[in-house]
């Protein structure tokens, strides 16, 4: 992810990479060989201290390192924008500390929940906000990928820093909170399929203050999901809204305020505009553009640390199931 964001930011500015921090010697050697003008710091605190022209940093390290890095940066520089890959950190307690610290600064901050910038999920948000399907009553949702079918190695599989909730769940949980707010009740279970220390599958049923109820299934061990896939289906008093990475489908039983009754299917290619530079999915470019724009003003970008802390709160509750 570090390379992807470095690429998108460089492309948006039309400027080469000039400074980065990386600890892994092999990767440092690669960067030095390919981008000789780039200055690579092994220690990010030195980078922040020695590069006064830095306007912002993009943190794409393992999840358990996010909190200490963010706190170090906030202590060192009050005006440095911070973008961190999702999720904000591993637990809600750290998230609260980060949010408290960032409030004392002028630091533009953003978390890499880029699904909010994906054409289909954004359209779904608009349709829910305008009440097309009436009052939401029930939803089912999943975040699946086909990655783990044997014991894995590394921090993703350690009890303190990994598990499918932290690794595969954040996008879906962020979307649910973005769409419906924070749930007030939660139940469900977690299950190990291949990993020894962490869960490979989660089923979390939740209820929201509005009366909406539903569930989220999260797993990295589901076959036939070559790419990670997020899916949400919402039943309302006037129809059904279905959204995934590929499409938004609206089935209306009666006329809504703006749309006659009927079925409407909008596929991603119809909704997705071209972007200044496409690397990975278009939403990376759109999201990084917003962060760049807000660096000048010090304004936080949606979703910011406060938004992301809500995801940590929900993940903590799932972790206690």
């Amino acid at each position, binding site marked *: 992810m570090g*390379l*992807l964001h*470095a*690429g*998108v930011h*460089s*492309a948006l500015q039309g400027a*080469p*990479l000039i400074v980065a921090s990386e600890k*892994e010697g*092999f*990767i440092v*050697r*690669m960067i030095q*060989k*390919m*981008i000789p003008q780039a200055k690579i710091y092994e220690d990010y605190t030195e980078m922040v201290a020695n590069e006064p022209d830095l306007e912002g940093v993009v943190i794409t390290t393992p999840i358990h390192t996010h909190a200490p890095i963010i706190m170090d940066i906030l202590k060192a520089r009050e005006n440095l924008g911070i973008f961190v890959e999702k999720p904000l950190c591993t637990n809600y307690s750290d998230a609260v500390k980060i949010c408290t610290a960032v409030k004392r600064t002028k630091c533009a901050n953003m978390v890499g929940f880029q699904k909010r910038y994906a054409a289909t999920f954004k359209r779904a948000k608009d349709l829910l906000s305008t009440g097309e399907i009436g009052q939401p009553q029930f939803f089912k949702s999943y975040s699946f990928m*086909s*990655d*783990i079918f*044997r014991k*894995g*190695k*590394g921090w*993703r599989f350690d009890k303190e820093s990994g598990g499918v909730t932290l690794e595969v769940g954040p996008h879906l949980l962020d979307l649910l909170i973005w769409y419906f707010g924070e749930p007030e009740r939660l139940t469900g279970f977690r299950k190990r399929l291949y990993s020894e220390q962490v869960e490979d599958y989660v089923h979390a049923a939740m209820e929201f203050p509005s009366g909406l109820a539903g569930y989220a299934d999260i797993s990295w061990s589901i076959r*036939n*999901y*070559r*790419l990670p*896939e997020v899916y949400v289906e919402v039943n309302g008093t006037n129809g059904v809204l279905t959204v*995934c*990475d*590929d*499409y938004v489908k609206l089935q209306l039983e009666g006329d809504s305020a703006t749309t006659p009754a009927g079925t409407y299917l909008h*596929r*991603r*290619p*119809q909704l997705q505009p*071209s*972007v*200044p*530079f*496409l*690397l*990975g999915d278009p939403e990376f470019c759109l999201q990084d553009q917003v962060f760049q724009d807000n660096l000048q003003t010090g304004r936080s970008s949606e979703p910011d640390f406060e938004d992301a802390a809500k995801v940590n709160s929900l993940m903590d509750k799932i972790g206690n199931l």
Partner: protein
Amino acid sequence: MAKPLERVLIGDNPFIGVDHLSQDRAREKLTLLNVQKEISVLQTAFANGASGFVFSTHPAHLEAFSLLAKENPELSFELYPLLPYAQGYVRSATEKGMVGMISELFGQLSWGGKVKALVGGGISTITANPYKMLETFVDMEIGRFLQVAPPKAKLKAVFLHEIIVDLALSLQLRELLERYVSYINGQYHVKAGLVTRNFERLVQFFERNGMSFDNTTIMTPFNKAGFQMNPTKEACERVLAQRSDIDVIAMSILAAGMIRLDEAVGYIENLPNLTSVVVGVSSEEHAVKTFQALRARPVESRPLVAR
């Protein structure tokens, strides 16, 4: 009347579960496909106007090539491998970590002294130099497919995946692109292929750095809907119209299935300087219809599979 296309190629996306419109549809197609079906569709495509196969270095194709060589050893067609099969390496990196994945990948080379044969040194010789690493990786990937392909299949170009090409463009890695082109030209005596979803940016990068398009083929989206044409459809069309010296293969001509075949053909025919297309098909019937339409005039309908 529009000039006939010089090259019409079949792509492999439907065979490996890639569908830019719908993952549901990709899963459905995959359940209907097997190696026998893949080689049947390939032979139908070749019998109806396709001259070559653009394929990711996905392990599934090794079996298809072996079976094709056995069943139809006289079959002649062009090979356009595309590497790396990115998703496979993403998965491996998830399981083993980035460094673990690379170590294991090149660790395979130590068996049977292949490292020395390939690079005249040990694994550290490769991993200390990203360009040498890329060259060794290309040799490993291409080698295993050339070994099993039908004897009369001919290598025509070796494509580098858009995830590498576009990353190189964004980070301005001129030497990486130059060395890749030079290596493919020198080692395999074919054009180096570059896949991009940022066509205008690629052309600007080549121009700014005084790089030549002589020994390259560029594969990039061109379709009526502007799907995956960045920064805009108009910019991509303008650059294509201005540069008759660039060998371009249009991909995504059906915009992932959003555009009808006749509309796609009409759009392609009217693009100046475009002489080649690649399109994926998942059935024999679809192959007959698609490749006959792209070849402008119907060729004589042939049996679906020549046995």
